[in-house]
């Protein structure tokens, strides 16, 4: 495979829906009315909303063409650091579409929803066993929502202990949702710097940990792809002053079957089912952010909770210390089905293998590219590695330029400009589902781009060239926002 995947081909322009609209067209098969038309008070009736009027082929062609402008995991390698863009198994779609699941009404009653409740209960058990915790809630609808749940439980815990605290320790490598979630609970973020080796140092934590601090939020491995090896000591420091440790589980893909956060001092951990557990990203969602807790925080879990009694499953809301409710019903059941099917398909050994191969792939990329791109933290990495554009500075080429040029080669760029601790970061997470050949192509693409940076920097500055649109004017979009047509 010598040719890079990216090539040009015929794609189609497609106007906005209302530009295609023609009075009188309709794409839906209307059911025949079989009861009398019923009147409603005239002043309650509004005009029909000005939605487009299209034929069925108009709609099908519209969205088919739009889809062809998109890049998905099924299109090519998508090494977005921190996002775990692994393959989304198609059998999971079959499972989620089963009538018994897709057609289930949330208020049908427990008796008539045992399949759903059993699935959710089992999923809770698997997630708890995977990570060494005692109980799980599946209610949060996304990772950030899970973080909020974790913060709210910590908040409820301290309220119950009789003294509410005002601060949370946040490392400089944290994802933005961490301090934002803490703020929503009324906590002040105390930001601490990681050490020169890219991980947190116990002394730095001890320096700020006090009895006003509710706890710490730690991502492990962190967003530099490095394992926080001081985690146990850090947890002890936080616990010794009555605080709790929140684990951001976004990077769980590196440690399944290898480390169980519940065993090493973490009190509460959230999962991203749409990352580690293969559920599709959907262009921005829906995701699912379950949260696992130890005995300390179990009483504060959101309600309703699923309780098993003999052979049947019940939804129970009677938990007096609950932090409350976070979702109208029970969370994103449709996403849970897919994650559950994935766990069953992989099995315990399969999940462990996935982590091992994810880490292998990332280290392979790191070693292969470290001469080409600057590697600020030259240590063994976990499932992702972070470079930057230091070597390309002399040609005035930035991380952004290289990312845009990667598009022409047929790869989705890695995560750029995050984490903030690395200037102009270029974070690569291949995931375990990428083959050696695809990774080798990616590596040679990056090397080719680094060469172009030297020999033909204009090509990068004006990249991408092969995509439907090239770089967009984000300044204009923000100055004069045009958010509707």
């Amino acid at each position, binding site marked *: 495979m010598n040719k890079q995947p990216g090539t040009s081909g015929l794609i189609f322009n497609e106007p906005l829906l209302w530009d295609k609209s023609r009075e009188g067209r309709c794409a*839906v098969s209307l059911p025949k009315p079989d009861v009398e038309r019923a009147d409603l008070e005239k002043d309650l009736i509004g005009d*029909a909303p000005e939605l487009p009027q299209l034929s069925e082929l108009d709609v099908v062609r519209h969205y*088919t063409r739009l*889809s062809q*402008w998109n890049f998905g995991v099924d*299109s090519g390698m998508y090494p977005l650091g921190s996002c775990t863009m692994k393959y989304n198994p198609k059998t999971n779609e079959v499972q989620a579409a089963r009538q018994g699941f897709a057609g289930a009404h949330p208020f049908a009653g427990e008796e008539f929803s045992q399949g759903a409740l059993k699935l959710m209960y089992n999923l809770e058990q698997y997630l708890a066993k995977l990570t060494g915790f005692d109980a799980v809630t599946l209610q949060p*609808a996304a990772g950030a929502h899970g973080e909020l749940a974790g913060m709210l439980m910590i908040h409820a815990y301290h309220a119950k202990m009789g003294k509410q605290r005002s601060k949370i320790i946040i490392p400089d490598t944290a994802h933005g949702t961490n301090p934002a979630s803490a*703020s929503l609970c009324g906590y002040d973020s105390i930001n601490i710097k990681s050490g020169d080796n890219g991980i947190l140092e116990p002394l730095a934590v001890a320096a700020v940990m006090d009895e006003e601090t509710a706890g710490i939020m730690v991502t492990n491995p962190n967003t530099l792809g490095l394992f926080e090896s001081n985690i146990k000591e850090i947890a002890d420091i936080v616990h010794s002053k009555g605080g709790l440790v929140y684990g951001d589980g976004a990077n769980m893909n590196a440690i399944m079957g290898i480390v169980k956060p519940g065993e090493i001092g973490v009190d509460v951990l959230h999962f991203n089912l749409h990352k580690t557990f293969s559920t599709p990203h959907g262009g921005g969602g829906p995701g699912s952010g379950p949260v696992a807790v130890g005995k300390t925080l179990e009483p504060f879990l959101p309600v309703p909770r699923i309780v098993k009694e003999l052979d049947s499953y019940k939804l129970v809301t009677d938990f007096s210390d609950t932090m409350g409710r976070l979702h109208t019903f029970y969370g994103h059941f449709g996403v849970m089905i897919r994650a559950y099917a994935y766990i069953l398909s992989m099995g315990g050994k399969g999940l462990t293998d996935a982590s091992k191969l994810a880490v292998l792939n990332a280290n392979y990329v790191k070693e292969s590219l470290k001469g080409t791109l600057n590697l600020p933290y030259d240590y063994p990495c976990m499932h992702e590695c972070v470079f930057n554009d230091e070597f390309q500075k002399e040609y005035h080429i930035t991380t952004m330029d290289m990312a845009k040029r990667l598009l022409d080669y047929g790869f989705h760029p890695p995560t750029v400009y995050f984490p903030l601790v690395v200037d102009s970061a270029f974070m690569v997470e291949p995931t375990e589902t990428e083959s050696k050949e695809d990774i080798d192509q990616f590596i040679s693409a990056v090397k080719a781009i680094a060469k172009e940076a030297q020999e033909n920097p204009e090509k990068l500055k004006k990249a991408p060239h092969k995509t439907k649109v090239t770089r*967009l004017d984000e300044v204009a979009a923000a100055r004069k926002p045009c958010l509707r047509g």
Partner: protein
Amino acid sequence: MRYLPHTKEDIESMLKVAGQSCLDDLFNCIPDDLKTKDSLDIPESLSEWELNAHMEELASLNIACKDYKCFIGAGSYDHYIPAIIPYLISRSEFMTAYTPYQPEVSQGTLQGIYEFQTMITELLGMDIATASHYDCGTALAEAALIALRKNKNANKIAVSSLTHPSHRQIIDTYISPAGYEIVEIPYTKEGLTDVGALGAMDDIAGIAVQSPNFFGNIEDLSSFKTVAEAKKILFIASFTEALAFGLLKNSGSFGADLVAGEGQSLGIAKSFGGPGLGLLAGTQKLMRSLPGRLIGKTKDANGDDGFVLTLATREQHIRREKASSNICSNNGLNAMTAAVYLATVGKIGIREIAQQNHDKAVYLKTSLEKAGFESVFETPFFNEFVMKAPVSFEQKRTALINDKCIFAGMRLDKFYPGLKNHYLFCATEKISKGDIDQLAKEVQE
């Protein structure tokens, strides 16, 4: 394992490059005492065929596996989903793509969501709609926080007692850590929120009313807008049945500052309550206060039209602890689904479908009355209404589920303890005259 492509040879040559002798050595950077000693107590992997059997068995434990007649709403609605919708949104370029942070290769998602934003503003009669939220409850909680933050003098928000019970709980969960409180607005004997009760409420930062409300009744939102304007506070309208606005005057026409809603009715399967689709819309004035993703139109370097995520400086990845919300993802694929649905039904279809929902619900109500049920409210409603049933009905209701696969309404007393023997009924375009006649016959006293 079919998702793991590595051959033995691949692993060997990659380990060489990585400088390790075996896979386990890749984890030498983790101290031994931090590694787990126990194996994973997770079952052995299932083949695709075993998985199918297992999942089929689980699904069969849900009554929904059979074709059942659904006369329940309460925030999750049983509507027809045209075949082209699952067909189009399952295209993997939509499904397996990430958030459109690289707009050059995400114009499909970006134009699709821009069109979604536009159609939602049309549906709701508002200036701006976000790229969606998790569900109505969380969107409503975010709206409540906007109102509370804007008004430095008050720390309470007035919420109708006829707002979906789960939504009231979610608002409470979101606002109480910051020291804010809900004040519930009671309801009248007409089954409507009591606007008069607002007169006595002094220190409120906003008013939130759901219409159609949890009982299905249509509120007079203009009276609440008047009170909000007089108090110089924000007026928030919410809804759980998006199709209502195919027929009814939308919330924007009553001057709502913010509208939070549930979009599950727009082509999304009920799926045991999630994922649904949270909708949030606001006035131009509130644009920069809105949480969540927003997609805007712009031009590229060649002058061609294109779309990008914009106004990101409101969001957590830039504002971090100063962000007004922690929201990161939206319900992207469900927003696309709603867009495809709205494009499919169009102006003509949505009107007809909404009208039929209304017609069926009215016929259902009349039929139940004839069968011995008591009408509770003489108030206009949309596709849901409350009836008082004879005491014998509860038993009949369970029998109807087991024997005839009919879900005849939902008990209200678990949410409103004073309403014994009261049930919430719903009829959508999926319910036929024959279904209603059959139900009436079965419950006839």
